[in-house]
Structure formats: C-alpha cells, structure tokens
C-alpha cells in the first residue's frame, strides 16, 4: 500500500476567507455529519439554511463573535482514507493555536478569498506551517462565485503564491478553485470551472502521500522504567524514528554504554520488530542504569549531543522573550533548565524578511542560541520532527512560552569573561527597599554574560539554610554568619555570589567582609516611608498592627553602612539603572582583582 491509511491535515487562512464553511461543506459532502447535528445547526442558523461554519466553531464565544479562537479537531473518513482535520484560527492573535494544529499535520489546506487575493495572514500561515515541517500545501482559492469563476483571477493568485513559496524552500503545491458555500470542487467537480481539470479538494486529500516521514535512524526516548517481580527491567517509550528488532545493537545516552535489544513488547505481547510510532517496552541484554529522559539510539549513527543549540523559536506568550532569564525546556522526555543566550534576529512570517532583534514578541519567529544546563540528545528538526522539537516553559507561571525547532549545535560560546576570581556582592537594606529585585536583575545579566553566578536571597535562605532561626538579634547574626560562610566558599571557587539580605547590624556585616575579602557592599537605600508604602510582603502593615515584633525599621534598628562600596537609591533610580550600576562595579572590581593578581 503506497498511501497510508490516515492523513492528518490542517486548514488555515485569514479571517472571513470562509474556512469554517469549507470544512462544514467537506464534512457534509463526505457524509460525515449526522442528521441530528445538521438539524441542530439548522435551528441555530438565522434563516434555516445551513450555516456550515456552526459545525466547527464549537465555543459559545466563537459563535457570538463569528470567529475561530482555538483549533478544533474533526474526524471523518471516506472509503479510501481516514482523516484528522485540525481547523485552525485565522486571526493573528491566535497564531499559537494555529501552530498547535500544524505541529502534527502532514498537509496544509490554505484558503484565500478570490476577491482579496493573498493577505499577510495567508503568508504568515504558510510560513509557520512550513517552519513546522509541512511540505504539502493545497491552496483553495475560495469564493470563486464572487469573481464570476474567472480563470484569470485564479491564475493570478496562484502565481502570486508560487512566488512567495519559492522563498520558503522546496514545497508541493496544488491550487484548487472553490466555492465552499455551494460545494464547487470540494467533494464534487464544479461545472462552473470548465477551465480547471485538476482534482477536487477531497480527491486530492485522498490521494496525496500521507504519514509523517518516520524514516531515519533509530531513536527511542525512555519515558519510564517498568519493574515486575522476576522480570528484567523494561524501558517504556515511543519509537521516534527508525526500526527496532530483537538483537539490534544500541547505544544509551548519556552513558554511551552499548547493549543489544533482548525483547520488544506491547503490553504482554512479544514482537520481533517495531517501527514508529509504536509505544513499546524493551529489555536489554545488559544491565544498564537507564531512567526517564535517557535515550536509546542506533550506535552507528547516534543523535547529536550538546548543551548549546541553535534553534528557531516561535514565541507564543504575551510576555516577550528575555535573554538570560531562566526557562525550562521540554525535549523528548527530558526537562532541563535553559536560557536564551542570543537572538540572531526575527523573521516576519508575512514578508519573510529578517530583521535584527534582541528579543521576540508574541507570534514572532526568530533564530536563537540556547544554553541548557544539561545536554540534549537531538537531531535537526528537518531530519526528525520528534527529536528536533522542544517547548519552552515558564518556570514561574508554568505556561508554554514557545515552540522550538532545532537547527544545529551552536558554535562554541564566546569565551566567558576571563576572570576565574570570585566575589561576594552583599545587598543590604530595609525590607521592600528593592534588594531582591536588583539581585534578580543582576543575576540574570551576569548569567547571560557567561559568569558563574549564584544568588542567595534572604527569603530562600530563611526557607532552607536558616529554617530553624527566628528574628532575635542572636538569630539574625547567626543567619548572616551562615550565609557569609556559604558565600565565602562560593567566592573561593570563582563564583560571583549575590546575597540579598536585610542584615541590619553593622558589626555582623563587617565580620563577613573581613572573612571573605573580595567583597562588595551595596546599600539598597530607600527611606522607610517609601519602603513602608511599597510593603511588598505586607510585613510593615502587620508590624504596625503589633503582629510582628522585631521588625527592622519599625521596632528593631537598621544600622546603615557607613562606607558602602555602592549605594542604590531605589526611590530615585529604576531597578534597571541600579542593576547596571552594580554590574559595572562588579566588572571593575573583577578587572582590578585580576590586574592585582598578575
């Protein structure tokens, strides 16, 4: 059988190009709608005619506004094939939902309104579908009835699209003149387009080669390890590519240890061989210590491994990409900490123009360099959709921020700043003065510049290292001593240790400074009234209400530094200005220390 049984495809197009109607028509004319569904849609349509768009716009908000917000999945089959259709929104605002639908599709049906021709959104959808790996496009030039089924209009739009597609790369293209309202060339050939002798949309969908390109070398990411009494360990996962047979040699990553397949099973049924996309379990001839996130691969051609990768990101969050900010990456069954170290530029999907950019905003696409805390085992996305893709997750808000497609390993990092010297940067000041805000900003900037940096924040310390301590003078001094001890070890090992701690007593701070030596005291300074007004954690309010005894500034003293290395007046400067000042001071101090050393 040359064609596969299942075709996954998406439909995309600009708002009002008639996409939902086309789908309704496709389902109706391939007898995929039930009578009661037809009846319910007839009831809801204003004039008891069938409004086909009501089949797919399944949310009340969509029906109210007459737009598609999120991707809808529809299932239908003809005697030739089964179809999973992802109906994706046309509105630019919902591009991420369009990408959701495109990520698992083999083909894109793109709609254009014959009266309007190609719109920026048509280009955008084509480009995003192409980036996500779709190479087969059927362009339905719709609403042909409104241009009198004029062949010249059809030819003109087809020519325009062909020129645009050439800029994308190799692509399979067909153009079909349609009128979805009446069903012309959807499931039945139209008598109103005698000049068109190509296939109807449905004929085309039934005959194109389908199924993801699953060839390639064997890749199997371990999802989980299964144990049962008296049985060898079994590794569970889904085959991403290549074939697997009992006896095949394998290499395990990251251990690089080799073994052979002892057995393959689905459930309790033994198989001689297995191919993508089967979810199987395997046992190995040797006892390797494998866990979730590890990979088994063809030893003759293992995947690439690297912590630094170059990838195309499609940014899907309202909050723009922030280089240096800690993110999580989920790739195969691994989840690693990572940050974007460089944005090479942004691509406008509508014009395919590259422009220089330092960040990516919602719905923007760009090539970036990403540094992960652990290596990824990957293939370029162009070779393997499953081992070449990842998502970026917000470690704080938990949302999915971006979709990533790996291009290659990144070239070696620009050598990290030469210094191997450590330094402790001690932020002291009242509660709500801005210590943590500046600390965080400085941390991210230094990390992005390649420094080894750690951040000891007062609140985190109180939850962990000093969980047992209260707020008496003795306990506060003990807290400062403990943090000082950790900072000293870090400094000795070439790390920049950022400490943000109220540390109200001068003597305790001086003691730490003497012990550490390479020490930068930063006085984060805002008048008490300002801090009290900010009251980020509500502590002042509670202290004034008598709920917290020993609150620094209220009923316990704060002894400001007499001679700080740096003072940040957070009531007069922004956090970014303060952070820039601190970084400048750090780099000056490191340069000076390096000069002293040589």
């Amino acid at each position, binding site marked *: 059988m040359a064609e*596969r*049984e299942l075709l996954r495809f998406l439909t995309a197009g600009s708002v009002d190009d008639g996409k939902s109607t086309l789908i309704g028509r496709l389902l109706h004319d391939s007898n995929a709608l*039930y009578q*009661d569904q037809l009846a319910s849609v007839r009831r*809801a349509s204003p004039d008891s005619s069938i409004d086909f768009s009501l*089949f*797919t716009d*399944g*949310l*009340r*908000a969509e*029906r109210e506004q007459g737009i598609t*917000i*999120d*991707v*809808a*999945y*529809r*299932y239908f089959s003809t005697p030739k094939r*089964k179809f999973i259709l992802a109906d994706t929104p046309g509105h630019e605002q919902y591009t991420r*939902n369009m*990408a*959701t639908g495109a*990520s*698992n599709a083999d083909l894109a049906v793109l709609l254009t309104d014959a009266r309007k021709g190609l719109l920026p959104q048509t280009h955008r959808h084509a480009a995003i579908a192409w980036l*996500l790996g779709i190479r087969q496009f059927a362009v339905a030039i719709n609403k042909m009835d409104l241009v009198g089924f004029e062949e010249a209009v059809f030819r003109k739009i087809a020519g325009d699209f062909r020129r645009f597609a050439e800029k994308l790369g190799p692509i399979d293209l067909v153009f079909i003149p349609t009128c979805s309202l009446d069903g012309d060339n959807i499931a039945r050939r139209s008598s109103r387009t005698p000049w068109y002798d190509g296939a109807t949309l449905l004929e085309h969908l039934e005959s194109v080669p389908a199924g993801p390109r699953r060839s390639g070398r064997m890749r199997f990411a371990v*999802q*989980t390890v*299964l*144990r*049962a009494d008296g*049985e060898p360990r*079994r590794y*569970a*996962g*889904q085959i991403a590519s290549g*074939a697997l047979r009992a006896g095949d040699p394998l290499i395990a990553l990251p251990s690089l240890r080799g073994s052979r397949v002892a057995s393959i099973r*689905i*459930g309790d049924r033994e198989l001689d*061989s297995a*191919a*993508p*996309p*089967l*979810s199987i*379990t395997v046992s190995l001839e040797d006892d390797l210590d494998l866990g*979730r996130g590890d990979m088994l691969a063809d030893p003759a051609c293992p995947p690439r491994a690297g912590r630094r990768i170059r990838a195309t990101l499609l940014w*899907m969050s309202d909050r723009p990409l922030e280089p240096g900010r800690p993110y*999580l990456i989920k790739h195969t*069954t691994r989840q690693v900490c990572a940050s974007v170290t460089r944005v090479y530029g942004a691509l406008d999907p509508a014009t395919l123009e590259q422009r220089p950019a330092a960040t990516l905003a919602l719905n923007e696409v760009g090539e970036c360099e990403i540094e992960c805390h652990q290596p990824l085992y990957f293939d370029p996305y162009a070779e393997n*959709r*499953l081992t070449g*893709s990842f*998502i970026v*997750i917000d*470690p704080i808000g*938990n*949302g*999915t921020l971006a*979709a990533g497609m790996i291009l290659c390993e990144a070239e070696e990092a620009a050598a990290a700043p030469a210094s191997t010297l450590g330094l402790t940067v001690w932020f002291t000041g009242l509660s709500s003065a801005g210590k943590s805000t500046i600390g965080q900003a400085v941390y991210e900037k230094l990390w992005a510049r390649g420094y080894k940096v750690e951040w000891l924040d007062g609140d985190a310390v109180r939850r962990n290292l000093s969980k047992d301590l209260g707020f008496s003078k003795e306990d506060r001094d003990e807290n400062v001593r403990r943090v000082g001890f950790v900072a000293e070890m870090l400094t000795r090992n070439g790390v920049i240790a950022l400490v943000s701690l109220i540390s109200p007593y001068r003597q305790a701070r001086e003691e730490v400074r003497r012990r550490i030596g390479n020490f930068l005291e930063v006085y984060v300074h805002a008048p008490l009234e300002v801090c009290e007004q900010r009251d980020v954690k509500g502590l002042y309010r509670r202290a004034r209400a008598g709920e917290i005894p020993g609150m620094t500034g209220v009923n316990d003293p704060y002894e400001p530094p007499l001679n700080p290395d740096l003072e940040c007046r957070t009531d007069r400067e922004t956090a970014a200005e303060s952070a820039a000042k601190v970084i400048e001071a750090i780099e000056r101090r490191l340069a000076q220390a390096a000069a002293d050393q040589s």
Partner: protein
Amino acid sequence: MPTEISHLQTLEAESIHIIRETAAEFSRPAMLYSIGKDSSVLLHLARKAFSPARIPFPLIHIDTTYKFREMIEFRDRLACELGLKLIVHTNRAAIAEGANPFRLGTAKCCAQLKTKALLDALRDHRVDAAIGGARREEERSRAKERIYSFRDAYGQWDPRNQRPELWNLFNGRIEQGETMRVFPLSNWTELDIWRYIEQERIEVVPLYFAKEREVLVRGELLIPVEHNPPAGPGETVERVVCRMRTLGCTYCTGAIRSEADTVAKIIEELERAERSERENRLIDHDRDGSMEIKKREGYF
C-alpha cells in the same frame, strides 16, 4: 520489512504515550473510570502501557447512585478480577437533601452529583492529574479541548486561554490546588473504539448489546425505567428491543432501537448510522452550549 502500521495501532501508541507521560510527570494521577466503553478501552490501554508492572494509579468512579445496576456489578467484578485500586465517590450530602434528576432537572442534578462530586473526590484524594476517556469527536466543545487540559484551583476550564500543545510534548506544570485533566482518547472516534474493542476482545457492560428491555417511551426517546422516571401524559412503559449507545445515569441515557447484540453487529450498525452518538444524552441538550458550560464549571 516493517509492516504498515494500522490506524488503530497509531491511536493506541499515541494513547499509551500520553498515559505514561501523565504517570511519569504527576505525583498523584488517577483515572476517572465511568464503566462505559471508552473507560473500558482506557483501562485496557493503561494495563498495556505499564505491563508487566501494575497500573501505578487508582481508578475513581463518581457514583451518582442513578447508574444502572449492571454497570455497578460490572465495575466491582472487574476491579476484583484485575486487582485494581478503585475509589468510589458519591455526593452523599446532596442525595440526602433529595437531589435527583426528576426533581432538580438534569442541569442542576449534574452540577451536584457529577461536577461537585468529581471536584470533591479530586480534592479529597489530592489528585493532580485526572485521566479521562473523553473524545473530541463526541461534542463540539470537546473538539476544542487540549489533550492536557488545565484546570484552575476551582476546577474550571478556560477555553479562551488554553496552553499551546505541540507535537507529543505536553506541559504538565501546575501549582498546588490546580489540576490537569488528561484525555488520551482525544483522537478516537466511536467507531475506532468499537473496532478496538473487537480487535482486543475487551469486555464491556452488556447494556451496550441489544435485547428486550422495559423503557419509558417519550417520543423518539427511550428512557430506561430502572429508577422509576415519572411518566408524562401519554407516555407508556413498553418492552422494546434496544441497546445503549452511551452509558450514564439511567434517566439521562436514552436507549436506541437496535438489534445489534454483538460487537460486530454494533460496528455494522455504526457504519450505517445517521444520528450522532450523544443525541440521546439529555444532559447535552438542556441548553445551547451546555457541555461547554458544564466543562467550564469543572465537569469532565
């Protein structure tokens, strides 16, 4: 040399992948088990996913007390035979106050005995991921739902702001109190379910097979009489050869006239079907967009 992978194999592989991801990434997952055909397939897939080990999570059944006796018998026998950890939860307080579909109407009854009971059960057992057998094909708001469907601390679905979900990479990160609903059967159709039941010889509740049953005839609807639904004017109880196409509470699950008494005959019947699966589910039709409203409130 590797033979062509069938459509059912593809669906099976996708579902097993999803079930395993959920078990691996959440600390207290559970499977919502409704005893119906989809749940039977889901349970079969879970057993396959973890063989030779046991299913690493419990099953939760929300019992409204208006289920068919045959369903409860089937559930208890299966749990016993397979050695499953089964949690049964009922909103006793609401039932004590007399909640029933005849008095409250179906929308309010569902809110109390299903949605509230479900949210309570998830909270009591500190479940962070609830795996369910819903399919996108069933209903048009379900067609919009992600495989990993995020619910806030009140169990609510926000259809306008779903997380993007690409490839087979699921984002399961949540905060304490929030939950994920996971739908491994999202891409299955009713026919796929029955063809898989046939292929894998999965046992299902006998209510799916046609035989002569006592039903209250209300126009096109055939309402099972097990919990004594009040008859309206002109409505009679008759013995009709029928079967259930979906299973829920007796009153809200209409039977269909059918002679299909084997899995093969059911498949044949569905291939010719002109009416949709949930047409006879009263609860889907109590108002426009009723499934979406229920889902937003926390319903499965």
